């Protein structure tokens, strides 16, 4: 330690006095409280949260705002293979309800501006897709080096420093939510805007969704409107038969969506 970095006696006594008198969290927050901005203190406690998302298919207008916002917020490469979130358009024709037509031109980044005439009886709707942040995620189970993990607040994250780029998780994800970042050759995926939600903001896709079709929810917060929403709507998850414990809940999800 250099001479100018060593604390003088007054500082040392002040700091140690604080640590003795206050709890750990209060000590960390102390400087911010004194400055009159206690809300800026690093008081985020991961175990107090359990993040998820609700997506209302009836409200999605396919504008692609979420896809653009996600790429801008997270620096996702502009290739047509790299998406942390994307929008699909499902077309279910009356004579083939089991075989929907699914299209996602450039992930919905530019919207779906081609008008298609399907005739009467076709059911057409948009399905925004995102990492489901599964509670029992297959991708975490297969990672050999512990590079991908579930955080204590229920977000599936990738540690880019540890990732080898072996692609096991890309194959394991039943929802196709992972891609290889061509710049680093490591895996990347939706972080549920972990840098935003830990600061009290919502995700970039929810922030820019004009109709409120997407909503970030905290399932551990008893005051979150999600509980009321889940009770009063037809909620489903994608591929429930995979028992992944998905935490992205869809309202009005058609059975043909997979």
């Amino acid at each position: 330690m250099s001479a100018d970095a060593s604390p003088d006696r007054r500082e040392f006594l002040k700091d140690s006095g604080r640590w003795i008198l206050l709890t750990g969290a209060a000590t960390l927050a102390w400087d911010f409280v004194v400055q009159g901005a206690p809300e800026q203190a690093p008081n985020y406690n991961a175990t107090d949260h359990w993040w998820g998302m609700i997506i209302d298919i009836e409200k999605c207008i396919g504008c692609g705002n979420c896809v653009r916002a996600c790429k801008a917020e997270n620096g996702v490469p502009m290739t047509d293979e790299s998406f942390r979130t994307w929008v699909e358009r499902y077309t279910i024709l009356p004579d083939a309800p089991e075989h929907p037509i699914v299209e996602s031109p450039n992930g919905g980044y530019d919207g779906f501006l081609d008008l298609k005439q399907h005739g009467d009886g076709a059911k057409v709707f948009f399905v925004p897709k995102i990492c489901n942040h599964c509670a029992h995620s297959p991708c975490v189970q297969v990672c050999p080096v512990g590079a991908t993990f579930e955080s204590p607040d229920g977000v599936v994250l990738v540690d880019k420093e540890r990732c080898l780029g072996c692609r096991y998780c890309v194959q394991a994800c039943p929802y196709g939510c992972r891609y290889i970042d061509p710049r680093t050759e490591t895996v990347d995926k939706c972080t549920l805007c972990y840098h935003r939600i830990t600061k009290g903001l919502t995700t970039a896709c929810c922030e820019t969704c004009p109709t409120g079709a997407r909503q970030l929810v905290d399932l551990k917060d008893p005051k979150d409107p999600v509980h009321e929403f889940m009770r009063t709507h037809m909620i489903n998850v994608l591929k429930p038969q995979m028992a992944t414990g998905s935490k992205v809940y869809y309202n009005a999800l058609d059975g043909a969506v997979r």
Partner: protein
Amino acid sequence: MSGKFRNYEHVLRMAGLFGAGIAIFLVVRWIMVPADFGLYGFYRAGALKEIAAQPITYAGRDACAECHTDVIEVRKGTRHEKVNCESCHGPLATHASGDVANPGKPDPKTVCAPCHAKMTGRPKTQPQLDFKDHAGDAPCIDCHKPHSPKVK
């Protein structure tokens, strides 16, 4: 030395090799595994903080509302009330932090189309039309007010 322990040097050599193997393993493990690995689970605990330290691009509606109270007021009770500012204005964290003084306005010719152009699959409740039929090439704001979407 006789009986069972006649050739104990062999055993010692084996034990030495075994011990050296364990020692090498421990040293390699100490070098390869980060110190905070396994603190919360089978991952590096420091990764949580690193991921959370990523810079923000979208400031969020609350940041806009701190200064632009007039716009919030204009939008009250209109159909655009719940549309967040950055849905149309784009990412403006640099403006909210004061680094960019005047970020400019969105292009009035293209800003409305993503939500209001006619699109197959769009819910019927969403107001949508063919822009060319409706007003030719004129920008929407010639007639409509974007913050309270009525005809001027």
